[in-house]
């Protein structure tokens, strides 16, 4: 039997991007919160600028709980599912410790793409097999929460639309924001300047993208030093606005947040009336039961869905909050593949760049361009950035010019190591009937519990966006002087991704969605779900800021409506 612990008001499963943000409004409101985290605390001393350890060996993700429960992946139900890696980190702060930290708001279209597509092009333009729905609210509803997170966490960027005033230095396609970003954008680099000029030559509107990285002294944290080890590494000066260095310490300082590290949640307990009563977790060799009035699940899309699927009870025989059979459905992982690779005839000076230090083009994203004569909906945000490290540089493509080893190869990389650039193109991805998450019947984690199985593939809409956006990217590189351009294929199966959406979708209709418009289960009213798993559309940009805005909104709703949620 699990050892019973004292009851708390709220238990949050996962102290990462979403759970860390959710803790702050709750603890500020005086609620007692226990945050269960599968990883431990890391400090800036853990973030050595070491490409081998961080980039190639995936420290510390490779030795964590998540590594043992990596999803299996197959394109269709007829294929054999194969286990890959797990992209996320167990730590206080979660993957915000080592992510690239681009921190976008979704565009207004992403919230209402069904209605908008019907009105502009007709309902027939929505792929028949897609299960896409409008969000239960518009961009304007989420705007105040985007704003709160941008200021509480610390986002740098250039506004393009403040209360309807368009500023072409920023994204002219973004939804109206109430005010500027709290910090100016990260600085440009020689290469992003070249790309920005090329974009303007094409009549496009380039801008420095938003990042959860300080560009100036902010809230006691120093500005980014541009040493360039963001990718899979944490920040040595805490310039990256990880929840571990921003909202979580603030919540701890209220005296109302207790963080329990190395706690491995295995079950969410529900009573016979369909309410949740707490969670079981393993720490060391002991199992505990943490009772709580409210459970907030914030363990990333895959683990959110898996924990619910594993949590079977009399009230929920097919998994918690799955009596409508919607758990695991409407799954998407962002189509971030199909990049374009370019070679230039001069050094690009990218040795100290970061992934978030980039220049963006939004002309071909969402519905920012006319699709009347096209055969797809949605689009792509084009992004070029400045990250380069020596091992990866030496492993660069040879563009078919020389063999992959020997003296000619050596001469090639000596000349070209700082001359290539790989674009990052994030594309609208839709949910489909046959794309879903369930429990793998064969593969188990170290406790013997089944891992998640992903069954999902890209369809025509995603592949057409990929081809269209690659043409635009090629055009951009060539305008900037690229001498070689390579396009990569569209892919098929949707592998495990840091941009995973759906599985516990948010919507008003309880027949097709797991959580309501506030993020609480349609079936278990005191269970809230945080993270990309509630998002019904992918957008064409990084999800974390939207995940955090939603987490703040759910958490604030809970604090303001405690009695009605607890019942």
């Amino acid at each position, binding site marked *: 039997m699990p050892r019973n612990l004292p009851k708390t008001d709220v238990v949050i499963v996962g102290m990462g991007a979403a759970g860390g943000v959710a803790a702050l409004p709750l603890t500020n409101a005086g609620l007692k919160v226990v945050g269960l985290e599968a990883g431990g605390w890391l400090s800036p*001393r853990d*973030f*050595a600028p070491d490409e081998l350890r961080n980039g190639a060996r995936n420290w510390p993700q490779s030795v964590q709980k998540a590594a043992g429960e990596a999803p299996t992946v197959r394109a269709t139900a007829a294929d054999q599912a194969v286990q890959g890696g797990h992209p996320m980190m167990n730590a206080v702060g979660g993957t915000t410790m080592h992510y690239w930290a681009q921190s976008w708001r979704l565009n207004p279209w992403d919230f209402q793409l069904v209605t908008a597509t019907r009105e502009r092009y007709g309902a027939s333009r929505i792929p028949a097999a897609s299960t896409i729905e409008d969000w239960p609210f518009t961009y304007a509803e989420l705007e105040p929460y985007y704003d709160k997170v941008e200021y509480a966490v610390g986002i740098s960027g250039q506004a393009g639309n403040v209360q309807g005033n368009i500023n072409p230095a920023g994204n002219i396609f973004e939804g109206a924001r109430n005010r500027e970003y709290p910090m100016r954008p990260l600085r440009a680099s020689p290469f992003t300047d070249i790309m920005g000029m090329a974009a303007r030559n094409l009549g496009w509107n380039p801008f420095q993208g938003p990042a959860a990285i300080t560009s100036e002294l902010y809230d006691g944290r120093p500005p980014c030093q541009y040493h360039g080890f963001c990718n899979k590494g944490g920040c040595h000066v805490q310039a990256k606005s990880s929840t571990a260095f921003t909202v979580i310490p603030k919540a701890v300082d209220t005296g109302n947040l207790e*963080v329990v590290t190395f706690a491995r949640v295995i079950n969410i307990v529900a009573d016979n009336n369909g309410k949740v009563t707490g969670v079981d977790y393993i720490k060391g060799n002991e199992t505990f039961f943490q009772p709580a009035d409210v459970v907030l699940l914030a363990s990333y899309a895959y683990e959110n869905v898996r924990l619910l699927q594993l949590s079977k009870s009399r009230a929920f025989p097919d998994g918690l909050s799955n009596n409508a059979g919607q758990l695991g459905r409407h799954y998407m992982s962002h189509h971030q593949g199909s990049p374009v690779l370019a070679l230039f005839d001069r050094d690009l000076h990218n*040795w100290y760049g970061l992934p978030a230090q980039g220049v963006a083009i939004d002309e071909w994203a969402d519905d920012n361009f006319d699709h009347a004569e096209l055969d797809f909906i949605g689009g792509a945000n084009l992004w070029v950035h400045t990250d380069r490290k020596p091992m990866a540089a030496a492993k660069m493509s040879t563009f078919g010019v020389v063999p992959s080893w020997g003296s000619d190869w050596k001469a090639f990389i000596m000349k070209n190591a700082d001359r290539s650039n790989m674009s990052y193109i994030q594309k609208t991805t839709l949910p489909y009937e046959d794309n879903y998450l369930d429990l793998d019947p064969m593969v188990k984690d170290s406790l013997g519990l089944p891992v998640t199985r992903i069954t999902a593939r890209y369809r025509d809409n995603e592949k057409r966006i990929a081809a269209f956006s690659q043409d635009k990217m090629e055009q951009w590189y060539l305008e900037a002087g690229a001498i070689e351009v390579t396009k990569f294929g569209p892919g098929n199966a949707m592998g495990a991704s840091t941009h995973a959406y759906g599985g516990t979708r948010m919507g008003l209709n309880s027949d097709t969605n797991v959580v309501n418009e506030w993020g609480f289960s349609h079936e278990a009213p005191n269970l809230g779900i945080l993270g990309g798993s509630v998002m019904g559309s992918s957008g064409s940009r990084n999800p974390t800021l939207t995940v955090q805005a939603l987490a703040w909104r759910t958490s604030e709703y809970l604090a303001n409506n405690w009695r009605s949620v607890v019942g």
Partner: protein
Amino acid sequence: MAGNNNNDKTQSEHLATDQPSNPSRRNLLKGVGVVGAAALSGAATSNLIAADAPPGAGSAADSIVAREALEVLTALEAETLEVICDCLIPSDDNGPGAREARAVHYIDRSLAAHNSAARHDYMIGLSAVNDYAHQTGNKAFHQLDRDQQNAILLAVQNDNLDGFAPSSGGFFNMVRSHTIDGTFSDPYYGGNRDFIGWDMIRYPGIRLGASESDVAQGADLAPNHQSAYDHSTYTKMAQNMRGIPDSRVRGGRDHA
């Protein structure tokens, strides 16, 4: 967007004051580099043993080399792999390569640690390479001439030869990847000796901060030849973070 250079400088200077935790280690490494490179360039056919000196006969650096173990590879495996690495990233008119960077030393150490799962594939693969060498030239791989060695490696890469695990192409790609890792990763891991790899591709080195003018100079920036672990912050010896609080001290319970 102009960055705040003053702030940048202040912070990077603050961090740059961190001294290497063990300055003598750095000097020793540099010594090994000079002596080793000289020994190798003097004898094109030299192998690991040839660079040795009797104990006490040379500088401190020599005795470091003499005491170095092969942690996983056999002597023949190490000799074979040394030549493979030299074929992949050769020492040539453009300067030193994987051999001088000591990629084999890196690989041997990694096979005892992070890459231990690859030990079997190396054992089988290197043995197969020598089998093909005997079939081709009736000699061990490292005794063939360079054209014969390159021809065998090309076949291993492209021809799906028998006798490899998991496949000859897979073995080749793994060795190529590890050779690059050993040549271009942080010298802490035993390769990239004397920053040969980083100098080869004009990587100016790890810096804890890069100003706009540093970036504008790009690869023309003077290489600083520092390992991440020359910064005591990241070593076991670090006392504290001097001004950067450790979030752990803020609270949280160690156990439920």
